[in-house]
């Protein structure tokens, strides 16, 4: 067994920590660790600096939000406009900006938003994004994963459209019947 150098050992440790962060869904921690990991090889760019600062700022905001919610010192209006889901979305967007492989086709998600009922939009998009990032990309690579995402969206639209058409036909038939009687 080849002996690892001190630097190699450190690299392995960092990779393990990054994988743990990913496994726990802590994208922000993953990005910070990744930046730290890369910093040792390449000099920090202005953009990296900005990203790290953004993450620290967002982490702080999240703590404030949690505390405010815990102690009930937050108005309903503020709660609605500054939800934890919104913060997570920003975290997630920054992660995706850093890793092009994790970007799903946004136009396909837009199709879902156009055609799905309001109550299901977030849940369906979230389910697809979760499987896209954590199962399909690691297993088959970015290009195949994007194809999978589009296929899922297109095959999901047919049942939704079919249900809408059937409902419309049902209403039409009922109104015709009422008109005649």
């Amino acid at each position, binding site marked *: 067994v080849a002996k690892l150098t001190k630097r190699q050992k450190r690299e392995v440790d960092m990779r393990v920590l990054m994988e743990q962060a990913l496994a726990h*869904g*802590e*994208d*922000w921690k993953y990005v910070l660790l990744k930046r730290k990991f890369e910093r040792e090889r390449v000099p920090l760019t202005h953009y990296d600096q900005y990203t790290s600062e953004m993450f620290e700022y967002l982490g702080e905001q999240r703590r404030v939000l949690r505390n405010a919610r815990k102690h009930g010192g937050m108005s309903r209006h503020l709660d609605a406009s500054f*939800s*934890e*889901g*919104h*913060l*997570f*979305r*920003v*975290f*997630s*967007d920054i*992660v*995706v900006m850093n890793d092009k492989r994790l970007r799903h086709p946004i136009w396909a998600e837009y199709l879902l938003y156009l055609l*799905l*009922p309001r*109550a*299901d939009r*977030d*849940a*369906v*998009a*979230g*389910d*697809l*994004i*979760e*499987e896209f*990032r*954590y199962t399909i990309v690691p297993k088959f690579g970015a290009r195949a994963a994007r194809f999978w995402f589009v296929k*899922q969206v297109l*095959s*999901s*639209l*047919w*049942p*939704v459209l*079919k*249900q809408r058409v059937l409902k419309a036909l049902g209403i039409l038939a009922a109104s015709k019947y009422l008109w005649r009687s």
Partner: protein
Amino acid sequence: MGTMGEFERAVLLAISRLGDGAYGMSVRQELEKRLKRSVSIGAVYTTLDRMEEKGFVSSWVGEPTAERGGRAKKYFRVEAPGVQALNRSKEMSDAVWALLPMRTK
């Protein structure tokens, strides 16, 4: 009392099997595993919405997580009318199968 189709029955059984962890994607994966064919997420949600209208299942929204890009999960649970409909469907199916003569060697 509402009736249900074959796919609805499969979805109800998948939710019962998954218990507290039943949400759109886990139900879809369970269905693909059991039915051995691809199932779209849209078909699953359309069926779930229809069954919710019938009172077979109920849903609630979970916490938003970073791994889903800040989008919350929608969890599902089988309600008493759903269990009754499942039992009724099994009884009917058994009754139809009982009409066939048993093959004996």
